[in-house]
C-alpha cells in the first residue's frame, strides 16, 4: 500500500526552523524526562568535570530536531525510525537568550516501500551538534492508522 509522494523529491528541504534552549528549558526537561544529571543545571559541577559550561541534554536536542519532523508530518505516528549521534556538546549560557539550534530536514531517499528517508542538519553557531541524524517517515498526510488498539 503505497502512499502518494508525488510532492516530494530527493534533495528537497521539507522543513527548517530555529529552536532556542535556555536554562529554564533545561530545568523543565530535567523534570519532564527524569534526567537530573547536574552537568545539565550546575555550572559548578559542569566545570569540575572539565566541561565548558552547563550542557543541554542530548535528548533535548534530539527532541527539538524531532519536532521539526512531527511539525512537518502532523502525526508523530508517521515517524517510523529516528536516530542521531551526539557529536558536539551544546553549551547553554545563563542568560535570557540561551542558545539557538538550527534544524533543517531534507529528503534523502524515496524508498520502494513507500517510506521517506529524511536527513536532519542540526547546528549551533554553524557547527553540527548532531550527526547521522536521520529519520524514516511515512509521507505527510498519509493515514498512519496508529494500530495501538487491542
Amino acid at each position, binding site marked *: 500500500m503505497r502512499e502518494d509522494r508525488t510532492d516530494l523529491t530527493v534533495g528537497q528541504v521539507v522543513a527548517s526552523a530555529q529552536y532556542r534552549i535556555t536554562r529554564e528549558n533545561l530545568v523543565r526537561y530535567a*523534570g519532564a*524526562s527524569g534526567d537530573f*544529571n547536574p552537568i545539565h543545571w550546575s555550572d559548578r559541577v559542569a566545570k569540575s568535570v572539565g566541561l565548558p559550561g552547563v550542557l543541554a541534554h542530548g*535528548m533535548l536536542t534530539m527532541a527539538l530536531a524531532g519536532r521539526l519532523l512531527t511539525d512537518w508530518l502532523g502525526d508523530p505516528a508517521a515517524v517510523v525510525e*529516528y*536516530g542521531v549521534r551526539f557529536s558536539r556538546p551544546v553549551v547553554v549560557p545563563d542568560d535570557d537568550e540561551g542558545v539557538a539550534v538550527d534544524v533543517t530536514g531534507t529528503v534523502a531517499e524515496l524508498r520502494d516501500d513507500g517510506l521517506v528517508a529524511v536527513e536532519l542538519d542540526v547546528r549551533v553557531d554553524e557547527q553540527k551538534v548532531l550527526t547521522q541524524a536521520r529519520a524514516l517517515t511515512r509521507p505527510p498526510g498519509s493515514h498512519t492508522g*496508529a494500530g*495501538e488498539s*487491542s
Partner: protein
Amino acid sequence: MAIDPSVVGRVYPPQPYEVSREKVREFAEAIGDPNPVYTETEAARQHGHQDVVAPPTFAMIPVMRGFELLMDDLGIEFARLVHVDQRFTYARPLVVGELVETTTTLDAIRQVGGNDLLTIRNEVRNAALDTHVCTAKATLLIRPEEESDA
C-alpha cells in the same frame, strides 16, 4: 578497569512504565511542542489514535529505566557515562494510559582509547495487548574510574 566482556548478552528483567496523561503533557511542554495530539484526546483521535499519544523521544523515559538497571548491575556511576548515539524504531507511538515494559539487553562492549563503548538494546512492549511499541538502540561511552576530574 575495563568492564568484563563476559557480561555481553546479559538481559535485564522487564521494567514497567505507565504512560500518564500529565507526564506526556509535561514532556511536550518541556520540548516546547504545542502539537495538540500530545494534550487533546479529540486531536489525537483525528489522526486515528485511541487517545493522546507521546512525542517520539518520550520513549527515552521507559528506556532510561532499563539503562539504570544495567548501570547498577555493572557498577557504573552516571557521571562516567556519555551518550554517544540513540536510535528508535517505532511500531507505533506510546498512548496515554498504557502500561509498557522495557527489556534491556547488553548487545556488545568494545574498548576504544581506554573507554568502554556499550551497545544497548531496549525493547518496549505492551504486555497486555501483546504488542511491540518500539526498539531503542544506544551507544554509551563509559569513562574509566581512575580518570581524574581534569
